[in-house]
């Protein structure tokens, strides 16, 4: 078994330097830089053989199955900015890309302001996986069914990435390029998510459909972010997951909600817009017909939850 621990029965094959945070073996290196610049330098220099390690809950599984054989692992959890949760003075949030789901859950304010984003992130894997897994990793793993992504798309989160050419900002929905692929340039690392301050009467929700109650991959996931004023929806964003090669921002659904009192006519139009946006696969978890229908159902349910939360805020 390739993955059992090497025994202490002979001289190590490792060669090269160990300066305290660099470990070189014949076929794999590990670095845990303290600064982002060092991480970018190492990551960019190693080219396509390098992998970023945040929580590792996807990477280790991929390595063990043989799907990924990195020549270099860049552990970004020792970089302060990557694991920090910052509430800005104006009420916005900046969440480091490697912040674990549990760390975000334990933040005293984040879940009150962004309950939908938190519930989505907290659906990634089991509670034990939550102790490690991050939204940054979930985004970069680029699964169409990643739970945190539709909620972050609905939230209008902005992603800060850093690479050899410096920093730039992307919308969350601009990051995935297809299953397992992102639009990040070589050497670029996701650093943080920025969430804007919210007006009073704004809240969000995320729902996913799975055949079980826990521990499964979304058949459809739907994030809804609403701003309500006097019973009228003044702003909305809708993110839809697991129904296309990438997570979708469904602008037509948001448009159907905005200006309405979330009445039956508006909900029906928004649900239809969600179903119309679906380009899903047919697989053992859900057929095309099923996923398309469920997208509309989840839109209605998530909207109802977000609206109730918005009222209470």
């Amino acid at each position, binding site marked *: 078994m390739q*993955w059992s621990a090497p025994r202490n029965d002979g001289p190590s094959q*490792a060669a090269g330097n160990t300066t305290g945070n660099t*470990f070189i073996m014949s076929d794999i290196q590990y670095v845990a830089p303290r600064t982002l610049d060092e991480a970018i330098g190492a990551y960019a220099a190693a080219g396509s053989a390098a992998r970023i390690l945040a929580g590792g809950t996807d990477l280790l599984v991929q390595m063990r199955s043989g799907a990924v054989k990195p020549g270099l692992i860049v552990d970004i959890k020792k970089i302060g900015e990557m694991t920090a949760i910052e509430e800005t003075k104006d009420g916005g949030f900046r969440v480091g890309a490697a912040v674990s789901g549990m760390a975000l859950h334990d933040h005293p304010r984040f879940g009150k302001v962004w309950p939908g984003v938190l519930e989505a992130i907290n659906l990634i894997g089991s509670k034990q996986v939550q102790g490690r897994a991050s939204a940054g990793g979930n985004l970069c793993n680029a699964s169409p069914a990643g739970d945190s992504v539709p909620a972050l798309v609905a939230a209008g989160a902005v992603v800060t990435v850093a690479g050899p050419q410096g920093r730039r900002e992307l919308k969350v929905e601009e990051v995935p390029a297809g299953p397992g692929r992102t639009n990040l340039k070589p050497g670029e690392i996701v650093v943080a998510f920025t969430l804007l301050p919210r007006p009073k009467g704004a809240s969000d929700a995320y729902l996913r459909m799975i055949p079980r109650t826990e521990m499964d991959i979304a058949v459809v996931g739907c994030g809804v972010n609403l701003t309500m004023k006097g019973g009228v929806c003044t702003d909305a964003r809708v993110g839809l997951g697991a129904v296309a090669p990438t997570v979708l921002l469904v602008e037509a659904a948001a448009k159907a909600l905005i200006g309405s009192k979330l009445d039956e006519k508006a909900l029906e139009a928004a649900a239809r817009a969600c179903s119309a946006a679906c380009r899903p696969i047919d697989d053992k978890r859900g057929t095309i017909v099923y996923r398309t229908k469920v997208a509309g159902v989840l839109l209605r349910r998530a909207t109802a939850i977000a609206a109730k939360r918005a009222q209470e805020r």
Partner: protein
Amino acid sequence: MSFSISLIVNGSPCDVELDDPRVTLLDLLRERLQLTGTKKGCDRGQCGACTVIVDGRRINSCLALAVSHDGADLLTIEGVATGDRLHPVQAAFITHDGLQCGFCTPGQIMSAIGLIQEGHAADDPERVREGMSGNLCRCGAYAGITEAVLDATAAMALTDRRRSA
């Protein structure tokens, strides 16, 4: 050349030399430190048999690289009892028959201790089942496990109240 890390394992400092950065915490515990109470089930984060508590949080030790845990504080099943006195969660598992073959039990117990520390289980069986959903039991002892966690939660809350009184 190798890479050295320092850990605290069940309260004792422990220096380890690693000759491969791919060694997981699980393999380190089982193969190097001979702490075989932590079990390897699926080795891919699905079954929870390898659950340990690292710096206060329960994690799957099969999905954690040992090399990235320099300075970490680990609690494994070997470290939860006090001498011959069982941890309240261990005692509750016995009382409620929360096991049959016992292979998943160390992971179940570590996960339960993590869940109780998180403070969300309280007295709601549904929350316990949700909180324990990352631990599979192929013998199907779930009913006993849920009862054991509820019972241990209550027993530990009582002890806490007595201590603070």
